[in-house]
């Protein structure tokens, strides 16, 4: 019997769309050489729902419940961008109070998103306890959201020209209490995680992205700021009323996973500062620009005719988008979230292109995992902070 010749073949392993790691339905086809990773091919599309096509047949008001399903952990940002794009298109003014309320909600949502990034990140590295601690804080944020908007997660809160309802009585005091409590929570995380030697060994020097490389790949958000580039859309674009607060851009120089972790923890602390300043300085006034809702109603309008009474999906007079195109963007917790909107002189947009931060940031994954060990893939994937709802739309 001949001795079988051992061939040196590379092992192809499929980390399928179902896996206990908490990253959503992402499929990775890995080529391994023992423990080292040679190549990685991500396969997307398992959560594609046709969001952009659906938008071509909905008015903005009808489309708002859909947008929170893109990034379902930082929902206020998706609503903000959906509302900002038509506001810029039609040059709609937003009252001061509405702007402050929006900023408070956005920063609370940023904290919530970073918290739910931290839990699965630590769980992938192996410490399963912080996962329970972040939900403790996130439940408090949910309570605040529920009091103001009526829903814990998929609030349908932002409207063109402001917000849907004003803050309830006593909400501001509760929010102050939350800010004070949360600062102690962040200190707890620092003590438990940041100086833990096992954590540092797993995370330091893993997945390094240089500054120029980050710009070339089109990254944004904490991935860009962790590589030494101080680019934050809240300072660059000056949208809403961010220029009235006193805050710093959080950035690090190294570009490894530890730097991305530190940037996000720093951003959480900065958000608390911003919320406190906004709560102290919130002005009175209207919370929605009601001019937006005033449409020319002609007498004997065709909308009251027999033909329109018993047919569905005929939208009533609504906010019309003129025939222009523009690109609007916000600084979402995961990166730069943008909408490229082409209006068509009707209530439906002609083209609603979503620029998801997760999709663009995910492109660098195959580049980063080459020559890393199998266990590092989870660390790197976790530090990129993707959410499949917006990657696949």
């Amino acid at each position, binding site marked *: 019997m001949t001795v079988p010749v051992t061939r040196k073949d590379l092992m192809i392993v499929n980390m399928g769309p179902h896996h206990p790691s908490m990253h959503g339905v992402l499929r990775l086809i890995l080529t391994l050489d023992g423990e080292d990773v040679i190549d990685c091919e991500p396969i997307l599309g398992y959560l594609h729902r046709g969001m952009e096509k659906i938008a071509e047949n909905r008015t903005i008001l009808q489309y708002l419940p859909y947008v929170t399903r893109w990034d379902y952990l930082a929902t206020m940002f998706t609503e903000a961008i959906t509302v900002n794009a038509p506001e810029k298109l039609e040059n709609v003014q937003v009252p001061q109070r509405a702007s402050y309320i929006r900023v408070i909600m956005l920063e609370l949502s940023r904290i919530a998103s970073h918290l739910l990034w931290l839990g699965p990140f630590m769980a992938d590295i*192996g410490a399963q306890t912080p996962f329970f601690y972040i939900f403790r804080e996130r439940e408090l944020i949910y309570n605040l959201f529920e009091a103001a908007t009526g829903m814990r997660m998929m609030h349908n809160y932002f409207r063109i020209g402001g917000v849907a309802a004003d803050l309830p009585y006593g909400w501001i005091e509760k929010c102050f209490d939350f800010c004070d409590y949360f600062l102690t929570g962040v200190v707890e995380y620092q003590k438990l995680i940041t100086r833990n030697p096992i954590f540092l060994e*797993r995370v330091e020097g893993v997945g390094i992205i240089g500054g120029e490389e980050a710009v070339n790949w089109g990254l944004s958000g904490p991935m860009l700021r962790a590589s030494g580039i101080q680019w934050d859309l809240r300072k660059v674009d000056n949208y809403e009323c961010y220029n009235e607060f006193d805050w710093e851009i959080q950035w690090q120089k190294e570009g490894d996973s530890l730097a991305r972790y530190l940037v996000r923890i720093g951003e959480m602390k900065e958000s608390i500062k911003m919320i406190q300043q906004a709560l102290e300085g919130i002005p009175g006034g209207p919370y929605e620009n009601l001019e937006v809702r005033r449409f020319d109603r002609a007498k004997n309008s065709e909308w009251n005719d027999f033909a329109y009474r018993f047919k569905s999906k005929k939208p009533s007079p609504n906010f019309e988008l003129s025939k222009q195109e523009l690109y609007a963007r916000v600084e979402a917790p995961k990166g730069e979230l943008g909408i490229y909107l082409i209006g068509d002189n009707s209530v439906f947009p002609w083209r609603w292109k979503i620029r998801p931060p997760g999709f663009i940031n995910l492109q660098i994954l195959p580049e980063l995992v080459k020559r890393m060990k199998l266990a*590092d893939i*989870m660390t790197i994937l976790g530090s990129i902070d993707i959410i499949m709802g917006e990657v696949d739309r």
Partner: protein
Amino acid sequence: MIIDTTEVQTINSFSTSGFFKEVYGLIWIIPILTLILEITIGVLVIVWLEREISAAIQQRIGPEYAGPLGILQAIADGTKLLLKEDLLPSRGDIRLFSVGPSIAVISVLLSYLVIPFGYRLVLADLGIGVFLWIAISSIAPIGLLMSGYGSNNKYSFSGGLRAAAQSISYEIPLTLCVLSISLLDIVEAQSKYGFWGWNLWRQPIGFLVFLISSLAECERLPFDLPEAEEELVAGYQTEYSGIKYALFYLASYLNLLVSSLFVTVLYLGGWNFSIPYIPIPELFRINQMAGIFGMTIDIFITLAKAYLFLFISITTRWTLPRMRIDQLLNLGWKFLLPISLGNLLLTTSSQLVSL
């Protein structure tokens, strides 16, 4: 079990009657059954403890429906696993697949033979003593490799290889620590100075190295990469279901119990009460050699110390993240091995100097 002479005489008096002759022949089975019962209850207690402690750390409550305070949860889990379908992979090696978990469990169970629970309360008073444990625990990686290979699954194979590498690399620091302890007279010497006579203080480095190595041998966090959920979907245990999965689960907790018992005997003073200046030991010392009461107290003290170590190991599991496989092997070979060698050197030189 070595029985005291008075008890042997009483038992011999039974042998005069013909019926009891056969029973007397089988009397050796009673201590073994007692120990097995004790171990089983020990595993149930550990499972319950782990769930309650992890729940407390994570700010939630543990099991509360199966029995009062959730005590019967482990039995409920075991019964459910017994009643599950026993899946076999279609193209895997069926014999290896079936035998793998059994080898892991058998090697751990055999290590219980040499643990002393009290003065001369050992199942097998062998001359080699604790080295039997080290030798037999080296058989466990074979079981893991068999399970990983027989599963016909790339993940399981990879996990089995990692588990075997980890087990092998942490055996050597373990052995060296135990070697340096065996140069000192183990439990007798620890009783001389009460609390301060524990080997813990005479061999602090050895204690720490033994702690880390035994956690790595049991594949508990921070060393549980072979069963890491996120990467390998339970590693070599992936394809198992039903009673074979329960055997792996059992082997893990049995291993933990045996490690903690060894830590108590070697480092924490064994069955001695060891807290000085409390008149209770004097009271008990009168009863020490005379009867079951003394032996029960000794067993109780050993178990209490073992559960203290278990508490530390469970808390560590739920606090620290996991180490990567190359960092793990680095720790074993490049860090713990030289330290334990140095420890051995220190111990031998101090023995030579003090004579």
